[in-house]
């Protein structure tokens, strides 16, 4: 027993090294959302296109939809825009936009210039709805199931790879499960 005691510091070092190595692989920018599998927060906000009209979560309940939180001041949102257009063209689910802490004219001109992938864009000028959804950066993209629960949250610019790997299987599953 005592003969192998010199191995003790080596063992402690190895354990520490494993912890640190695992820690290196984790991204502190990706904070897991406590809202997963919980009912999506509801909102009713003025539409970007027409302030008189309301965009509400109730409009989309009953079938899966994607909520994309974005802003014109956000570089990652510009990056993912082409991907969102492609996703919208595929017509898998409605894309709902949440324009976060932005200016209406800027949002409108962005959509006019770059194309509009959204079924509707809600205008969250003061960021209160974003807080309800636990948004802490843009872009963030949520998948809401037919039962109104949040099935997945993507924290980063959307990519086709992430869409095919994380979103599509969940949408198919949700579609198969609903009556």
């Amino acid at each position: 027993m005592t003969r192998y005691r010199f191995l003790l510091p080596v063992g402690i070092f190895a354990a520490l090294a494993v912890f640190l190595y695992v820690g290196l692989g984790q991204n502190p920018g990706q904070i897991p959302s406590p809202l997963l599998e919980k009912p999506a927060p509801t909102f009713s906000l003025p539409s970007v296109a027409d302030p008189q009209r309301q965009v509400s979560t109730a409009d989309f309940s009953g079938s899966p939809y994607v909520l994309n939180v974005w802003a014109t001041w956000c570089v990652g949102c510009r990056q993912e825009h082409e991907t969102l257009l492609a996703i919208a063209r595929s017509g898998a689910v409605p894309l709902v936009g949440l324009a976060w802490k932005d200016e209406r004219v800027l949002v409108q001109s962005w959509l006019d210039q770059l194309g509009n992938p959204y079924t509707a864009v809600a205008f969250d000028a003061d960021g209160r709805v974003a807080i309800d959804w636990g948004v802490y950066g843009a872009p963030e993209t949520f998948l809401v199931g037919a039962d109104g629960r949040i099935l997945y949250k993507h924290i980063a610019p959307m990519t086709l790879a992430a869409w095919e790997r994380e979103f599509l299987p969940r949408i198919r599953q949700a579609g198969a499960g609903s009556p």
Partner: protein
Amino acid sequence: MIRRWQILLSTALCAVMLSAGAIDTLPEFKDPQLQQRYERLIHELRCLQCQNNSIADSPVGLAGDLRRSVHDLLSEGKTDDQIMNFMTSRYGDFILYRPPFAPRTWLLWLAPVLLLGAGAFIAWRVVAGRTRLVDSDTEEFGEDSDTR
């Protein structure tokens, strides 16, 4: 001399700017107790964008929004626990600088005690071992040992 004066001035200016960053358009509470609770709560909550700042210290927009939420909830008469629940239900325990004492954080909270205990045990073993050595070395220091 001028240099020292300049340093003093720039330090003072920096201090002014730091406090300016934390000033909101939010009105101060008339009740000093409420204001105190507000100050304490915003120092307990982590800004999720610049994660080494509390929402009290962070200049980013989200921190301002979260301060406004805390302010609103206090005005509505919510308790500290209710406000913390509001935050953790949206952002998880990550938003708390002091994580709750729960089974999954036992190791985190108890690690210092465990490590201190382990260190004390090792120190005790080492000291006890050395003391035994002194006790056993009872041979008189004399000519025998000299000539050997």
